[in-house]
Protein backbone atom coordinates (compact mmCIF):
# COMPACT_ATOMS: atom_id res chain seq x y z
CA UNK A 1 0.00 0.00 0.00
CA UNK A 2 2.76 2.38 1.00
CA UNK A 3 4.64 1.45 -2.15
CA UNK A 4 1.60 2.11 -4.33
CA UNK A 5 1.11 5.49 -2.71
CA UNK A 6 4.80 6.26 -3.15
CA UNK A 7 4.59 5.39 -6.83
CA UNK A 8 1.53 7.56 -7.34
CA UNK A 9 3.24 10.42 -5.49
CA UNK A 10 6.32 10.10 -7.66
CA UNK A 11 4.17 10.01 -10.80
CA UNK A 12 2.49 13.25 -9.70
CA UNK A 13 5.90 14.72 -8.94
CA UNK A 14 7.03 13.71 -12.42
CA UNK A 15 4.06 15.47 -14.02
CA UNK A 16 4.70 18.59 -12.00
CA UNK A 17 8.34 18.51 -13.02
CA UNK A 18 7.58 18.10 -16.71
CA UNK A 19 4.93 20.81 -16.63
CA UNK A 20 7.37 23.22 -15.00
CA UNK A 21 10.08 22.36 -17.53
CA UNK A 22 7.69 22.67 -20.47
CA UNK A 23 6.45 26.04 -19.25
CA UNK A 24 10.01 27.25 -18.73
CA UNK A 25 11.03 25.99 -22.18
CA UNK A 26 8.14 27.87 -23.82
CA UNK A 27 9.08 31.07 -21.97
CA UNK A 28 12.70 30.66 -23.04
CA UNK A 29 11.81 30.08 -26.68
CA UNK A 30 9.31 32.95 -26.99
CA UNK A 31 11.98 35.67 -27.45
CA UNK A 32 13.55 33.69 -30.33
CA UNK A 33 10.10 33.20 -31.78
CA UNK A 34 9.33 36.91 -31.58
CA UNK A 35 12.62 37.72 -33.27
CA UNK A 36 11.87 35.32 -36.12
CA UNK A 37 8.25 36.48 -36.49
CA UNK A 38 9.05 40.20 -36.37
CA UNK A 39 11.83 39.81 -38.94
CA UNK A 40 9.26 38.67 -41.50
CA UNK A 41 6.56 41.22 -40.68
CA UNK A 42 6.02 44.58 -42.31
CA UNK A 43 6.04 47.92 -40.50
CA UNK A 44 2.28 48.41 -40.55
CA UNK A 45 1.54 45.03 -38.96
CA UNK A 46 4.30 45.49 -36.35
CA UNK A 47 2.87 48.85 -35.33
CA UNK A 48 -0.77 47.77 -35.37
CA UNK A 49 -2.63 47.67 -32.06
CA UNK A 50 -3.22 43.91 -32.16
CA UNK A 51 -0.67 41.25 -31.33
CA UNK A 52 -0.08 38.72 -34.11
CA UNK A 53 1.31 35.25 -33.51
CA UNK A 54 2.05 34.95 -37.22
CA UNK A 55 2.86 37.71 -39.71
CA UNK A 56 -0.42 38.70 -41.42
CA UNK A 57 1.64 39.50 -44.52
CA UNK A 58 4.89 37.64 -45.03
CA UNK A 59 7.57 40.13 -45.84
CA UNK A 60 10.90 38.93 -47.20
CA UNK A 61 11.94 42.34 -48.51
CA UNK A 62 13.67 42.96 -45.18
CA UNK A 63 16.27 40.32 -45.92
CA UNK A 64 17.19 41.62 -49.36
CA UNK A 65 16.91 45.22 -48.20
CA UNK A 66 19.42 44.55 -45.47
CA UNK A 67 22.24 43.99 -47.92
CA UNK A 68 21.17 46.49 -50.58
CA UNK A 69 20.24 49.49 -48.42
CA UNK A 70 23.36 51.69 -48.41
CA UNK A 71 22.28 53.26 -45.11
CA UNK A 72 22.78 49.92 -43.33
CA UNK A 73 26.40 48.67 -43.34
CA UNK A 74 25.26 45.11 -42.71
CA UNK A 75 27.63 43.25 -45.03
CA UNK A 76 30.62 45.27 -43.85
CA UNK A 77 29.83 44.87 -40.15
CA UNK A 78 29.21 41.13 -40.49
CA UNK A 79 32.58 40.81 -42.22
CA UNK A 80 34.26 42.86 -39.48
CA UNK A 81 32.69 40.70 -36.78
CA UNK A 82 33.69 37.48 -38.53
CA UNK A 83 37.27 38.65 -39.08
CA UNK A 84 37.64 39.88 -35.50
CA UNK A 85 36.10 36.78 -33.96
CA UNK A 86 38.21 34.38 -36.04
CA UNK A 87 41.54 36.17 -35.55
CA UNK A 88 40.95 36.86 -31.88
CA UNK A 89 39.93 33.26 -31.17
CA UNK A 90 42.93 31.89 -33.05
CA UNK A 91 45.24 34.36 -31.34
CA UNK A 92 43.95 33.54 -27.86
CA UNK A 93 44.27 29.81 -28.49
CA UNK A 94 47.85 30.07 -29.74
CA UNK A 95 49.10 32.61 -27.16
CA UNK A 96 47.32 31.09 -24.16
CA UNK A 97 47.98 27.53 -25.28
CA UNK A 98 51.72 28.16 -25.53
CA UNK A 99 51.84 30.13 -22.29
CA UNK A 100 49.74 27.55 -20.44
CA UNK A 101 52.03 24.77 -21.60
CA UNK A 102 55.12 26.75 -20.65
CA UNK A 103 53.74 27.40 -17.17
CA UNK A 104 52.72 23.80 -16.67
CA UNK A 105 55.78 22.03 -17.98
CA UNK A 106 58.87 24.17 -18.52
CA UNK A 107 60.81 25.05 -15.37
CA UNK A 108 62.76 28.33 -15.38
CA UNK A 109 63.95 30.97 -13.00
CA UNK A 110 61.08 33.39 -12.60
CA UNK A 111 58.24 31.02 -13.28
CA UNK A 112 56.57 31.79 -9.94
CA UNK A 113 56.73 35.55 -10.47
CA UNK A 114 55.34 35.16 -14.00
CA UNK A 115 52.51 33.01 -12.71
CA UNK A 116 51.57 35.72 -10.21
CA UNK A 117 51.75 38.44 -12.86
CA UNK A 118 49.24 36.45 -14.90
CA UNK A 119 46.84 35.36 -12.19
CA UNK A 120 46.74 38.81 -10.56
CA UNK A 121 44.90 40.11 -13.63
CA UNK A 122 42.21 37.46 -13.11
CA UNK A 123 40.90 39.70 -10.35
CA UNK A 124 40.35 42.61 -12.69
CA UNK A 125 37.60 42.19 -15.28
CA UNK A 126 38.63 43.70 -18.61
CA UNK A 127 35.44 45.77 -18.82
CA UNK A 128 36.38 47.78 -15.74
CA UNK A 129 39.64 48.93 -17.32
CA UNK A 130 38.18 50.17 -20.58
CA UNK A 131 39.21 53.77 -19.86
CA UNK A 132 42.94 52.95 -19.39
CA UNK A 133 42.86 50.65 -22.42
CA UNK A 134 41.19 53.35 -24.49
CA UNK A 135 43.91 55.79 -23.48
CA UNK A 136 46.60 53.36 -24.62
CA UNK A 137 44.90 52.45 -27.89
CA UNK A 138 44.26 56.07 -28.78
CA UNK A 139 47.91 56.89 -28.10
CA UNK A 140 48.87 54.16 -30.53
CA UNK A 141 46.52 55.72 -33.08
CA UNK A 142 44.44 52.56 -33.24
CA UNK A 143 40.98 54.08 -32.78
CA UNK A 144 38.55 52.76 -35.40
CA UNK A 145 41.01 50.15 -36.61
CA UNK A 146 40.75 46.37 -36.64
CA UNK A 147 43.99 46.00 -34.67
CA UNK A 148 42.58 48.32 -32.01
CA UNK A 149 39.58 46.01 -31.75
CA UNK A 150 41.55 42.76 -31.80
CA UNK A 151 44.97 43.12 -30.19
CA UNK A 152 44.09 44.28 -26.64
CA UNK A 153 41.75 41.29 -26.31
CA UNK A 154 44.38 38.72 -27.23
CA UNK A 155 45.91 38.42 -23.78
CA UNK A 156 43.38 36.51 -21.71
CA UNK A 157 44.70 35.47 -18.31
CA UNK A 158 41.75 33.15 -17.73
CA UNK A 159 42.39 31.17 -20.93
CA UNK A 160 46.08 30.85 -20.03
CA UNK A 161 45.23 29.72 -16.53
CA UNK A 162 42.78 27.10 -17.88
CA UNK A 163 45.33 25.80 -20.39
CA UNK A 164 47.87 25.50 -17.59
CA UNK A 165 45.44 23.51 -15.46
CA UNK A 166 44.63 21.28 -18.41
CA UNK A 167 48.26 20.63 -19.35
CA UNK A 168 49.15 19.86 -15.73
CA UNK A 169 46.76 16.92 -16.05
CA UNK A 170 48.06 15.83 -19.45
CA UNK A 171 49.66 12.33 -19.29
CA UNK A 172 53.38 12.91 -18.95
CA UNK A 173 54.35 9.51 -20.36
CA UNK A 174 53.27 10.56 -23.86
CA UNK A 175 55.46 13.64 -23.72
CA UNK A 176 58.41 11.68 -22.34
CA UNK A 177 58.16 9.26 -25.25
CA UNK A 178 58.26 12.22 -27.65
CA UNK A 179 61.30 13.62 -25.83
CA UNK A 180 63.08 10.27 -26.21
CA UNK A 181 62.47 10.54 -29.93
CA UNK A 182 64.43 13.80 -29.90
CA UNK A 183 61.61 16.33 -30.10
CA UNK A 184 62.25 19.41 -27.97
CA UNK A 185 59.54 21.26 -26.04
CA UNK A 186 58.45 23.04 -29.21
CA UNK A 187 58.14 19.88 -31.30
CA UNK A 188 56.51 17.95 -28.47
CA UNK A 189 53.95 20.68 -27.98
CA UNK A 190 52.89 21.03 -31.61
CA UNK A 191 53.21 17.41 -32.75
CA UNK A 192 52.17 15.46 -29.68
CA UNK A 193 50.37 17.60 -27.10
CA UNK A 194 48.19 19.73 -29.40
CA UNK A 195 46.87 16.84 -31.53
CA UNK A 196 45.82 15.09 -28.31
CA UNK A 197 44.07 18.15 -26.89
CA UNK A 198 41.59 19.03 -29.64
CA UNK A 199 38.60 18.60 -27.33
CA UNK A 200 39.91 21.13 -24.83
CA UNK A 201 41.01 23.52 -27.59
CA UNK A 202 37.50 23.29 -29.07
CA UNK A 203 35.95 24.03 -25.67
CA UNK A 204 38.04 27.17 -25.09
CA UNK A 205 37.80 28.16 -28.76
CA UNK A 206 34.00 28.05 -28.94
CA UNK A 207 33.41 30.14 -25.83
CA UNK A 208 36.09 32.63 -26.86
CA UNK A 209 34.39 32.92 -30.25
CA UNK A 210 30.97 33.51 -28.66
CA UNK A 211 32.40 36.12 -26.32
CA UNK A 212 34.15 37.97 -29.13
CA UNK A 213 31.18 37.87 -31.50
CA UNK A 214 28.86 39.22 -28.82
CA UNK A 215 31.31 41.75 -27.31
CA UNK A 216 29.84 45.20 -26.99
CA UNK A 217 31.57 47.72 -24.72
CA UNK A 218 35.05 47.57 -26.27
CA UNK A 219 33.84 47.71 -29.91
CA UNK A 220 31.59 50.60 -28.89
CA UNK A 221 34.51 52.50 -27.39
CA UNK A 222 36.94 51.81 -30.25
CA UNK A 223 34.74 51.46 -33.32
CA UNK A 224 34.02 55.14 -33.92
CA UNK A 225 33.82 55.14 -37.73
CA UNK A 226 31.10 53.20 -39.45
CA UNK A 227 33.70 51.16 -41.35
CA UNK A 228 34.99 49.65 -38.12
CA UNK A 229 31.58 48.75 -36.65
CA UNK A 230 31.01 45.19 -35.60
CA UNK A 231 27.54 43.82 -36.18
CA UNK A 232 26.62 44.42 -32.51
CA UNK A 233 27.52 48.10 -32.83
CA UNK A 234 25.56 48.43 -36.07
CA UNK A 235 22.50 46.88 -34.37
CA UNK A 236 22.90 49.01 -31.28
CA UNK A 237 23.28 52.22 -33.25
CA UNK A 238 20.07 51.60 -35.15
CA UNK A 239 18.27 50.44 -32.03
CA UNK A 240 19.14 53.46 -29.90
CA UNK A 241 18.81 56.00 -32.72
CA UNK A 242 15.66 54.33 -34.10
CA UNK A 243 16.79 55.35 -37.55
CA UNK A 244 15.75 52.29 -39.52
CA UNK A 245 12.51 50.35 -39.84
CA UNK A 246 11.88 48.15 -36.84
CA UNK A 247 11.12 45.05 -38.92
CA UNK A 248 14.41 45.51 -40.74
CA UNK A 249 16.18 45.82 -37.41
CA UNK A 250 14.74 42.45 -36.37
CA UNK A 251 15.92 40.92 -39.62
CA UNK A 252 19.40 42.34 -39.00
CA UNK A 253 19.41 40.84 -35.50
CA UNK A 254 18.32 37.49 -36.91
CA UNK A 255 21.21 37.56 -39.40
CA UNK A 256 23.57 38.61 -36.58
CA UNK A 257 22.77 35.64 -34.33
CA UNK A 258 22.47 33.07 -37.14
CA UNK A 259 26.18 32.08 -37.05
CA UNK A 260 26.06 31.46 -33.31
CA UNK A 261 22.81 29.50 -33.50
CA UNK A 262 24.45 27.26 -36.10
CA UNK A 263 27.43 26.86 -33.78
CA UNK A 264 25.11 25.84 -30.97
CA UNK A 265 23.46 23.30 -33.22
CA UNK A 266 26.70 21.57 -34.19
CA UNK A 267 29.21 22.34 -31.43
CA UNK A 268 27.06 22.45 -28.32
CA UNK A 269 29.05 19.71 -26.63
CA UNK A 270 32.23 21.81 -26.72
CA UNK A 271 30.44 24.98 -25.70
CA UNK A 272 29.03 23.21 -22.64
CA UNK A 273 32.49 21.95 -21.76
CA UNK A 274 33.94 25.42 -22.25
CA UNK A 275 31.34 26.92 -19.92
CA UNK A 276 32.00 24.27 -17.28
CA UNK A 277 35.76 24.79 -17.46
CA UNK A 278 35.73 28.56 -17.44
CA UNK A 279 32.99 28.88 -14.83
CA UNK A 280 34.61 26.74 -12.19
CA UNK A 281 38.18 27.71 -12.99
CA UNK A 282 39.23 24.34 -14.33
CA UNK A 283 39.03 22.05 -11.33
Amino acid at each position, binding site marked *: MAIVRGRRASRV*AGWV*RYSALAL*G*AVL*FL*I*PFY*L*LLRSAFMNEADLGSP*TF*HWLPPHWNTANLTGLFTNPAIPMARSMLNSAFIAVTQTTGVLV*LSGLAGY*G*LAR*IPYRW*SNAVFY*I*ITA*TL*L*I*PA*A*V*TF*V*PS*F*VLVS*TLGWISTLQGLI*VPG*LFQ*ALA*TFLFRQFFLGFPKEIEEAAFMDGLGY*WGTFWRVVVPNSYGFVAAIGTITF*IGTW*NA*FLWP*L*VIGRDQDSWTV*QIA*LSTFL*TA*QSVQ*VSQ*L*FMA*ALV*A*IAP*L*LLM*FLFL*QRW*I*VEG*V*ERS*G*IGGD
Partner: protein
Amino acid sequence: MFVGPFVIGLIIFVYVPIVWSLYLSLFEAYNTVTPTTFVGFGNYADMLADPAFRQSLVTFLVFAAVIVPVTFVLSLTVALLVARTTFMQAFFRSVFFLPTACSYVVASLIWKMSIFSGIRSGLANAVLGWFGIDSIPWLSITEPPWYWLVIVTARLWLQIGFYMILFLAGIQRISPNLYEAAAIDGAQGWKVFRYITFPQLRATSTAVLLLLMINAFQAFDEFYNILSTFGTYPPYARPPLVYLYYTALGSGQDFGHGSAGAVILTLIIAIVALTQGRLLRLGRRDD
Protein backbone atom coordinates in the same frame (compact mmCIF):
# COMPACT_ATOMS: atom_id res chain seq x y z
CA MET B 1 59.24 31.29 -26.57
CA PHE B 2 56.21 29.78 -24.78
CA VAL B 3 55.27 32.16 -22.01
CA GLY B 4 57.17 35.18 -23.33
CA PRO B 5 54.80 36.54 -26.03
CA PHE B 6 51.81 36.25 -23.75
CA VAL B 7 53.46 37.94 -20.79
CA ILE B 8 54.85 40.78 -22.92
CA GLY B 9 51.39 41.37 -24.39
CA LEU B 10 49.80 41.23 -20.97
CA ILE B 11 52.24 43.80 -19.63
CA ILE B 12 51.71 46.15 -22.59
CA PHE B 13 47.94 45.85 -22.85
CA VAL B 14 46.93 45.31 -19.22
CA TYR B 15 49.64 46.54 -16.85
CA VAL B 16 50.84 49.61 -18.78
CA PRO B 17 47.28 51.02 -19.16
CA ILE B 18 46.59 50.50 -15.46
CA VAL B 19 49.81 52.20 -14.37
CA TRP B 20 49.27 54.96 -16.89
CA SER B 21 45.79 55.62 -15.63
CA LEU B 22 47.04 55.64 -12.04
CA TYR B 23 49.36 58.42 -13.23
CA LEU B 24 46.69 60.18 -15.30
CA SER B 25 44.26 60.06 -12.39
CA LEU B 26 46.50 62.52 -10.54
CA PHE B 27 46.25 65.12 -13.31
CA GLU B 28 43.77 67.22 -15.15
CA ALA B 29 43.28 65.73 -18.61
CA TYR B 30 40.36 67.07 -20.61
CA ASN B 31 40.16 65.98 -24.25
CA THR B 32 43.72 64.71 -24.06
CA VAL B 33 45.47 61.59 -22.88
CA THR B 34 48.61 63.50 -21.90
CA PRO B 35 48.43 64.97 -18.42
CA THR B 36 48.28 68.77 -18.09
CA THR B 37 47.99 70.05 -14.52
CA PHE B 38 48.91 68.04 -11.46
CA VAL B 39 45.99 67.88 -9.05
CA GLY B 40 47.10 65.15 -6.63
CA PHE B 41 44.19 63.20 -5.28
CA GLY B 42 41.78 65.91 -6.36
CA ASN B 43 40.15 63.73 -9.00
CA TYR B 44 39.55 61.00 -6.43
CA ALA B 45 38.04 63.46 -4.01
CA ASP B 46 35.83 64.84 -6.78
CA MET B 47 34.67 61.37 -7.79
CA LEU B 48 33.88 60.26 -4.26
CA ALA B 49 32.06 63.52 -3.61
CA ASP B 50 30.12 63.36 -6.89
CA PRO B 51 26.52 62.34 -6.09
CA ALA B 52 26.19 60.80 -9.57
CA PHE B 53 29.15 58.50 -8.91
CA ARG B 54 27.81 57.42 -5.54
CA GLN B 55 24.40 56.99 -7.12
CA SER B 56 25.94 54.61 -9.67
CA LEU B 57 27.27 52.45 -6.85
CA VAL B 58 23.80 52.45 -5.27
CA THR B 59 22.32 51.45 -8.63
CA PHE B 60 24.76 48.54 -8.76
CA LEU B 61 23.82 47.46 -5.23
CA VAL B 62 20.09 47.55 -6.03
CA PHE B 63 20.65 45.67 -9.28
CA ALA B 64 22.91 43.06 -7.63
CA ALA B 65 20.49 42.63 -4.71
CA VAL B 66 17.87 41.47 -7.20
CA ILE B 67 19.75 39.79 -10.03
CA VAL B 68 22.21 37.75 -7.93
CA PRO B 69 19.73 35.84 -5.70
CA VAL B 70 17.07 35.48 -8.41
CA THR B 71 19.50 34.11 -11.01
CA PHE B 72 21.01 31.83 -8.38
CA VAL B 73 17.69 30.31 -7.29
CA LEU B 74 16.24 29.99 -10.80
CA SER B 75 19.32 28.44 -12.39
CA LEU B 76 19.69 26.00 -9.50
CA THR B 77 15.98 25.09 -9.78
CA VAL B 78 16.23 24.54 -13.53
CA ALA B 79 19.39 22.45 -13.07
CA LEU B 80 17.69 20.26 -10.45
CA LEU B 81 14.64 19.78 -12.67
CA VAL B 82 16.74 18.96 -15.74
CA ALA B 83 19.02 16.63 -13.75
CA ARG B 84 16.02 14.58 -12.52
CA THR B 85 14.60 14.29 -16.02
CA THR B 86 15.32 11.33 -18.24
CA PHE B 87 12.86 11.93 -21.08
CA MET B 88 13.99 14.74 -23.42
CA GLN B 89 16.75 15.83 -21.03
CA ALA B 90 19.06 16.98 -23.83
CA PHE B 91 16.23 18.98 -25.39
CA PHE B 92 15.40 20.87 -22.20
CA ARG B 93 19.05 21.51 -21.45
CA SER B 94 19.60 22.94 -24.93
CA VAL B 95 16.54 25.18 -24.76
CA PHE B 96 17.60 26.76 -21.47
CA PHE B 97 21.21 27.05 -22.64
CA LEU B 98 20.42 28.52 -26.06
CA PRO B 99 20.13 32.21 -24.98
CA THR B 100 23.85 32.06 -24.10
CA ALA B 101 24.40 32.36 -27.87
CA CYS B 102 22.46 35.60 -27.95
CA SER B 103 24.17 38.94 -27.44
CA TYR B 104 22.92 41.56 -24.99
CA VAL B 105 22.26 43.83 -27.96
CA VAL B 106 19.91 41.36 -29.64
CA ALA B 107 18.16 40.56 -26.37
CA SER B 108 17.76 44.29 -25.70
CA LEU B 109 16.21 44.69 -29.13
CA ILE B 110 13.68 41.91 -28.51
CA TRP B 111 12.86 43.18 -25.01
CA LYS B 112 12.62 46.84 -25.97
CA MET B 113 10.88 46.67 -29.34
CA SER B 114 8.82 43.49 -29.02
CA ILE B 115 8.06 42.20 -25.53
CA PHE B 116 8.05 45.45 -23.58
CA SER B 117 7.24 47.94 -26.28
CA GLY B 118 4.73 50.36 -24.81
CA ILE B 119 2.12 49.70 -27.48
CA ARG B 120 -0.65 47.10 -27.40
CA SER B 121 1.07 44.81 -29.89
CA GLY B 122 4.02 44.32 -27.53
CA LEU B 123 3.71 40.88 -26.01
CA ALA B 124 3.63 42.00 -22.37
CA ASN B 125 0.85 44.50 -23.02
CA ALA B 126 -1.00 42.02 -25.25
CA VAL B 127 -1.02 39.52 -22.38
CA LEU B 128 -2.24 42.22 -19.98
CA GLY B 129 -4.92 43.04 -22.56
CA TRP B 130 -6.24 39.45 -22.51
CA PHE B 131 -6.97 40.02 -18.83
CA GLY B 132 -8.51 43.39 -19.50
CA ILE B 133 -5.62 45.37 -18.01
CA ASP B 134 -4.50 48.68 -19.52
CA SER B 135 -1.22 48.94 -21.40
CA ILE B 136 1.83 49.89 -19.39
CA PRO B 137 4.45 52.26 -20.85
CA TRP B 138 7.28 50.06 -19.62
CA LEU B 139 10.23 52.21 -20.54
CA SER B 140 8.90 55.74 -20.82
CA ILE B 141 7.93 56.33 -17.20
CA THR B 142 10.03 56.16 -14.06
CA GLU B 143 7.26 55.90 -11.48
CA PRO B 144 6.74 53.00 -10.87
CA PRO B 145 10.18 52.00 -12.21
CA TRP B 146 8.99 49.31 -14.63
CA TYR B 147 12.28 49.59 -16.54
CA TRP B 148 13.88 47.47 -13.83
CA LEU B 149 11.58 44.60 -14.76
CA VAL B 150 12.67 44.91 -18.40
CA ILE B 151 16.36 44.98 -17.54
CA VAL B 152 16.27 42.19 -14.98
CA THR B 153 14.22 39.78 -17.11
CA ALA B 154 16.49 40.33 -20.12
CA ARG B 155 19.56 39.43 -18.07
CA LEU B 156 17.79 36.46 -16.49
CA TRP B 157 16.93 35.05 -19.89
CA LEU B 158 20.50 35.53 -21.10
CA GLN B 159 22.35 34.01 -18.17
CA ILE B 160 20.20 31.37 -16.45
CA GLY B 161 21.32 28.71 -18.95
CA PHE B 162 24.99 29.45 -18.33
CA TYR B 163 24.70 28.97 -14.57
CA MET B 164 22.38 25.97 -15.04
CA ILE B 165 25.26 24.26 -16.88
CA LEU B 166 27.60 24.98 -13.94
CA PHE B 167 25.09 23.58 -11.45
CA LEU B 168 24.44 20.51 -13.64
CA ALA B 169 28.17 19.81 -13.73
CA GLY B 170 28.25 20.13 -9.93
CA ILE B 171 25.24 17.84 -9.48
CA GLN B 172 26.84 15.18 -11.68
CA ARG B 173 29.92 15.16 -9.47
CA ILE B 174 27.92 14.18 -6.37
CA SER B 175 28.51 10.54 -5.50
CA PRO B 176 25.42 8.32 -5.99
CA ASN B 177 26.39 6.53 -2.77
CA LEU B 178 25.24 9.54 -0.78
CA TYR B 179 21.78 9.34 -2.32
CA GLU B 180 21.59 5.60 -1.70
CA ALA B 181 22.49 6.12 1.93
CA ALA B 182 19.85 8.83 2.19
CA ALA B 183 17.23 6.56 0.62
CA ILE B 184 18.04 3.84 3.15
CA ASP B 185 17.58 6.38 5.93
CA GLY B 186 14.19 7.23 4.43
CA ALA B 187 15.06 10.77 3.34
CA GLN B 188 13.03 12.13 0.44
CA GLY B 189 12.48 15.22 -1.64
CA TRP B 190 13.32 18.43 0.20
CA LYS B 191 15.36 16.64 2.86
CA VAL B 192 17.64 15.10 0.23
CA PHE B 193 18.19 18.53 -1.25
CA ARG B 194 18.69 20.20 2.13
CA TYR B 195 21.12 17.69 3.59
CA ILE B 196 22.89 16.23 0.55
CA THR B 197 22.58 18.06 -2.76
CA PHE B 198 22.91 21.64 -1.52
CA PRO B 199 25.86 21.05 0.85
CA GLN B 200 27.64 19.06 -1.86
CA LEU B 201 27.19 21.98 -4.26
CA ARG B 202 28.96 24.36 -1.94
CA ALA B 203 32.01 24.95 -4.16
CA THR B 204 29.82 25.42 -7.24
CA SER B 205 27.47 27.74 -5.40
CA THR B 206 30.30 29.96 -4.19
CA ALA B 207 31.80 30.16 -7.67
CA VAL B 208 28.39 31.00 -9.16
CA LEU B 209 27.80 33.75 -6.58
CA LEU B 210 31.22 35.25 -7.30
CA LEU B 211 30.64 35.23 -11.06
CA LEU B 212 27.14 36.69 -10.67
CA MET B 213 28.51 39.48 -8.51
CA ILE B 214 31.37 40.35 -10.89
CA ASN B 215 29.07 40.25 -13.90
CA ALA B 216 26.50 42.47 -12.20
CA PHE B 217 29.27 44.95 -11.41
CA GLN B 218 30.20 45.08 -15.09
CA ALA B 219 26.62 45.52 -16.31
CA PHE B 220 26.60 47.87 -19.26
CA ASP B 221 25.21 46.41 -22.47
CA GLU B 222 21.54 45.99 -21.60
CA PHE B 223 21.33 49.28 -19.68
CA TYR B 224 22.85 51.16 -22.60
CA ASN B 225 20.78 49.47 -25.30
CA ILE B 226 17.44 49.33 -23.51
CA LEU B 227 17.44 52.74 -21.86
CA SER B 228 19.18 55.10 -24.24
CA THR B 229 17.14 56.56 -27.09
CA PHE B 230 18.18 58.95 -29.83
CA GLY B 231 21.71 58.99 -28.43
CA THR B 232 20.79 60.23 -24.95
CA TYR B 233 20.82 58.22 -21.76
CA PRO B 234 18.34 59.05 -19.00
CA PRO B 235 19.79 60.47 -15.75
CA TYR B 236 18.55 57.51 -13.67
CA ALA B 237 19.61 53.84 -13.67
CA ARG B 238 23.26 54.42 -14.42
CA PRO B 239 25.39 51.55 -13.11
CA PRO B 240 29.14 52.22 -12.59
CA LEU B 241 30.35 51.39 -16.10
CA VAL B 242 27.61 53.45 -17.74
CA TYR B 243 28.53 56.37 -15.51
CA LEU B 244 32.21 55.92 -16.32
CA TYR B 245 31.48 55.66 -20.04
CA TYR B 246 29.72 59.00 -20.09
CA THR B 247 32.32 60.66 -17.86
CA ALA B 248 35.40 59.55 -19.75
CA LEU B 249 34.10 59.16 -23.30
CA GLY B 250 31.08 61.43 -23.37
CA SER B 251 31.23 64.97 -24.63
CA GLY B 252 33.63 66.00 -21.85
CA GLN B 253 36.36 63.40 -22.60
CA ASP B 254 37.52 63.84 -19.03
CA PHE B 255 40.31 61.27 -18.73
CA GLY B 256 41.61 62.53 -15.39
CA HIS B 257 38.33 61.85 -13.61
CA GLY B 258 37.67 58.84 -15.84
CA SER B 259 40.97 57.26 -14.81
CA ALA B 260 40.33 57.97 -11.14
CA GLY B 261 36.90 56.34 -11.52
CA ALA B 262 38.43 53.30 -13.25
CA VAL B 263 40.97 52.93 -10.44
CA ILE B 264 38.28 53.14 -7.75
CA LEU B 265 36.06 50.58 -9.53
CA THR B 266 39.02 48.25 -10.11
CA LEU B 267 39.87 48.39 -6.42
CA ILE B 268 36.25 47.68 -5.44
CA ILE B 269 35.93 44.69 -7.75
CA ALA B 270 39.33 43.29 -6.75
CA ILE B 271 38.37 43.53 -3.08
CA VAL B 272 35.01 41.85 -3.73
CA ALA B 273 36.69 39.06 -5.71
CA LEU B 274 39.43 38.54 -3.11
CA THR B 275 37.00 38.45 -0.22
CA GLN B 276 34.70 36.02 -1.93
CA GLY B 277 37.65 33.96 -3.16
CA ARG B 278 38.94 33.74 0.39
CA LEU B 279 35.51 32.59 1.55
CA LEU B 280 35.53 29.97 -1.20
CA ARG B 281 38.87 28.62 -0.09
CA LEU B 282 37.78 28.59 3.56
CA GLY B 283 34.67 26.70 2.51
CA ARG B 284 36.80 24.08 0.86
CA ARG B 285 39.00 23.62 3.87
CA ASP B 286 35.93 22.76 5.93
CA ASP B 287 34.98 19.90 3.64
